[in-house]
């Protein structure tokens, strides 16, 4: 296959990677030289390193571990810090980040989740947060519930973008109110994060999911819920799916305001 530009196709770039051998182990930096093909992404460069794990100083080392799934920016697994900012590595093109020979790209694991190894982190807390706000439509039961209510087009239009959340963790990594919490016993009272607040809105707007709306709002009124948002609004700026997270936060703010006042006057 003819190369479109010989100067870019044979260039060498460097990946500076923050490595860690396992939970609780110390971190260290290692640099690798790779030869990206045109259109290469960070993952394909990591595959080069895995094939030949030798640092740029010529020292043999272990292959760099990372997590990935879909390789088309819909699963969220390969999220990491690239040049200090959070994003998916599969959609991160080398031609954009290191266009010239000798350029360096820095890779770090996300800082808000416990590191499993190297660039692979454990995002269990995100899924625990989805359980906290019951991010589902309650249709399980002993008998058939029949067909659900019709969904109105205008609500569907609002809900669609919210449904594209892939639980990648970008919004949480960029959030100054969301911090590393390795102890899972603390997850129930530490900040739940923008993704879960937005999912609560998604399922509250679902005709069947709305049955759990009071329980979702009460969970979000507790410590670590909607009130722990500091309105830095980094979440909406780093979201790779352009989900209007700050609108979801404000909408849940409105619903908890109404729910809390109504409860205060009516709850026995």
């Amino acid at each position: 296959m003819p190369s479109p530009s010989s100067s870019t196709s044979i260039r060498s770039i460097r990946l500076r990677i923050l490595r860690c051998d396992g939970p609780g182990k110390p971190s260290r930096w290692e640099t690798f030289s790779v030869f990206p093909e045109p259109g290469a992404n960070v993952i394909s460069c990591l595959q080069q390193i895995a094939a030949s794990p030798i640092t740029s100083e010529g020292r043999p080392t272990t292959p760099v571990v990372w997590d990935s799934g879909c390789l088309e920016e819909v699963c969220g697994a390969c999220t990491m810090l690239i040049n200090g900012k959070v994003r998916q590595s599969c959609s991160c093109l080398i031609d954009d980040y290191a266009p010239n020979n000798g350029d360096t790209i820095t890779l770090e694991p996300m800082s808000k989740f416990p590191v499993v190894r190297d660039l692979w982190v454990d995002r269990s807390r995100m899924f625990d947060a989805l359980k906290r706000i019951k991010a589902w439509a309650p249709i399980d039961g002993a008998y058939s519930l029949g067909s659900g209510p019709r969904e109105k087009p205008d609500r569907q239009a609002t809900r669609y973008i919210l449904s594209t959340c892939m639980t990648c963790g970008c919004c949480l990594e960029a959030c100054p109110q969301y911090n590393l919490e390795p102890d899972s016993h603390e997850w129930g009272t530490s900040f739940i994060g923008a993704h879960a607040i937005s999912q609560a809105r998604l399922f509250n707007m679902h005709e069947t999911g709305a049955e759990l709306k009071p329980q979702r709002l009460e969970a979000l009124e507790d410590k670590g819920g909607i009130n722990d948002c500091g309105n830095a609004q980094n979440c909406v700026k780093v979201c790779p799916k352009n989900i209007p997270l700050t609108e979801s936060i404000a909408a849940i703010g409105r619903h908890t305001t109404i729910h809390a006042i109504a409860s205060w006057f009516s709850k026995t």
Partner: protein
Amino acid sequence: MSPAVHGSSSDSTPRPSLLDRHYHLLRRLHSLTGIVPIGIFLIAHLVTNSSILWGAIAIREPAPIPGWSNAGVAYFWHEVKWINEQIPHLLLLEAALWGSILFHSAFGVYYAMSGRSNTDRYRYQSNWRYKLQRISGYIGILFIFYHIATLRWGWTFLVPGGTRWSYQFSASTLAASLRGGMTEVTTAGLAVSTLYFVGVGLLVFHFANGLWTAAITWGLTVSAHAQRRWGYACTALGAALLIMGWGSVIGYAILDPTKVQALEHQLIDPIDRHQTLADPATFLGPREMDLTGEHPLAEPGYPWPGTENTTHKEAQEGPLQR
């Protein structure tokens, strides 16, 4: 449910603390107190203080007061006198305000401790405002404490020059507190003026930005467009308050306390004397006045700071004739 399961679940989830059980209420009260009463008071306070700038336009004196800043001083003097003598339950209002500031400060610091700023990596304007909101809160608490302690509670050992603020000499004692004495501006006085300049600026930002975030917290501005529109409104309010706040600090700091005090002597006296002569029974003047019609300030050498050698006649005519 078996007793063993019940026992283990109650052991692993202890009853939340009182603060955690009313978490939502306390967070919303924290938001509310920032606007009512603290924010409303801030607006009223800066409008009153800035009358040194615009009082000449609004003054309703029967006798015209020559000079823009003299008229500003006179207007401010009337406003402060009204606040101190006419507002009912003043101490109760003040206690409610102090209580709100204490609550807002204590919970604000507690809530702010849960965050960790990351402006080094995410340099968005909203992220800087998040950081500045917390910094302005911390410095604002210290500034408000100094401000109330010195000018309201009379902790004169914290005032360079030792001026005690008095509502009857509102502008001159304020100017002396900002300048570090009745005469020229001292280095310590300049430090106090700078503290006021910075403190007022940070608190105005804290209020304007807090008003913007409160609309999200309570769910008033849901769409991004609504948040931007409300942002313009909060910026405009903040800019207006900033002009008033900074204008006030500069306006009082450049006053000549001695001349202003002479004017204040004159403002205290003729009006009260007139009222006393008209109907001594319904006289509602300052508490220090006697009802004989003879004012204590009329005696030469009455010991007000900086006016030891000023006779009543000089005080009455001096600053206006010069």
